[in-house]
């Protein structure tokens, strides 16, 4: 499978503190890539750099072989890159349908009727058809999370970044979200999945990358990584601390 997105030596510093340091890895088309690491490892920063919401201090991102760093976010989106947010950020004063419709019209560039049909399909995909005309601000937190995902999907992404979709969800909700993610993968979307709930990532991803303190410390198949001492150390602390 071909490389869809490659992160090349990306570093980012915030006022002298390095959030990311020389991170390099490739994401292959059709994969689910899990990105894990303890607090403050720089995962969200990396996603924002991929989305061009932040500009890296060094290094760049290549998408389908083209350098995309430096584009404005809305242009990045039109290339087929999209992300969800850790804390759901739907458009709080618009209803669910409109929330999704905006992305279909602008991100995916569809015509009005096609966009409306597409928006309904997407809402169905995330189990929100019932709430079509509910104002986003009045949804429960979990529904907002689903809607946030729906907004990300509305731009017809080929490469989707999920920022801790499972955080704070009950087991039932986790199952629901994981089923959506699997469905997306089956439809051919490449996914970069940042997560804390390790068990789900380990079970579902094809490739796993571990960040710690801004550096990539491990990359490989999830089963190999779980048993690697470096991975355990990153979380558990060093042996002779």
């Amino acid at each position, binding site marked *: 499978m071909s490389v869809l997105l490659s992160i090349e030596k990306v570093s980012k510093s915030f006022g002298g*503190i390095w959030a990311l340091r020389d991170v390099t890895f490739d994401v292959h088309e059709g994969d689910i890539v899990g990105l894990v690491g*303890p*607090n*403050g490892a720089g995962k969200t920063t990396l996603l924002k750099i991929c989305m061009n919401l932040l500009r890296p201090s060094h290094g760049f991102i290549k998408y389908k072989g083209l350098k995309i760093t430096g584009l404005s976010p809305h242009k990045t989106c039109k290339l087929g890159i999209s992300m969800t947010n850790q804390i759901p950020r739907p458009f709080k004063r618009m209803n669910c349908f409109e929330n999704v419709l905006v992305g279909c019209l602008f991100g995916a560039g569809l015509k009005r009727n096609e966009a409306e049909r597409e928006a309904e399909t997407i809402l169905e995909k995330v189990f929100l058809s019932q709430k079509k005309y509910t104002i986003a601000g009045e949804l*429960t*937190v*979990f529904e907002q999370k689903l809607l946030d995902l729906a907004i990300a999907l509305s731009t017809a992404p080929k490469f989707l970044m999920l920022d*801790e979709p499972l*955080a*704070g969800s009950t087991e039932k909700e986790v199952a629901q979200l994981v089923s959506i993610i699997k469905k997306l993968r089956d439809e051919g979307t490449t996914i970069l999945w940042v997560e*804390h*709930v*390790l*068990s789900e990532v*380990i079970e579902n991803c094809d490739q796993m990358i571990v960040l710690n*303190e801004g550096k990539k410390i491990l990359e490989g198949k999830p089963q190999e990584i*779980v048993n690697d001492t470096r991975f*355990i150390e990153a*979380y*558990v*602390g*060093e*042996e002779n*601390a």
Partner: protein
Amino acid sequence: MKLMWVRKMLEIRNVDVSIEGLKILHNICLHIEKGEIVSLIGANGAGKTTLIKTIMRIIKHQKGEIIFSSQKLDPYEPYQVVKLGISLVPEGRRIFPYMTVYENLQIGAYVPTKRKEMKKHVDWVFSLFPILKERRNQLAGTLSGGEQQMLAIGRALISRPKLLLLDEISLGLSPKIINTLYKTIKEINAEGVSILLVEQALRRALKFANRAYVMERGKIVWEGDRSVFNEDELRKKYFGLS
């Protein structure tokens, strides 16, 4: 029974916390005895910081009760909790970056009853962290990460608390500095301050604490002391693999 009361510094009984409709803590029970170091371990997002903030009353709990030295904390606001003798070293240090080191320490003694003895306690902090004395007139934001952490701990100690809450003090620091910090924490504990230590790093936390609680997804999934701990089992709990 009465004796038991006195020995317990802090007791958390069946506490539930929801933030904006999202339930974060489920039925938390935890207690700290006088002079103990208790550690609270868990992965990201397990709810450790939320629990700490709940003790500090920055976040209000919906169910259950928190009792500190046989006093219910429920009616208090955060700024009143300090007066009772709980002090916080927050996650991410959160020192006041645009104030000098000395002024940061002064904030620690803001409570009127503690102001009189401030000098004495500042000297104590300076003896614990000599580097702070050297930098007393420097802006706190210009300190290195380790020094900032020391300042954050020092700031919390100025009020001479009975209970010190330490939230992820090793985050982003080099092992060497972490070791020094932990040694100092032992010293502080030896002076009679009870400590609740929040950590991600399981081994280190267990090594220093008398007892430990493991949290996962807002619940306490394991408690006990060092002697009964089985690393493999715990690791599974920790990663939520079981």
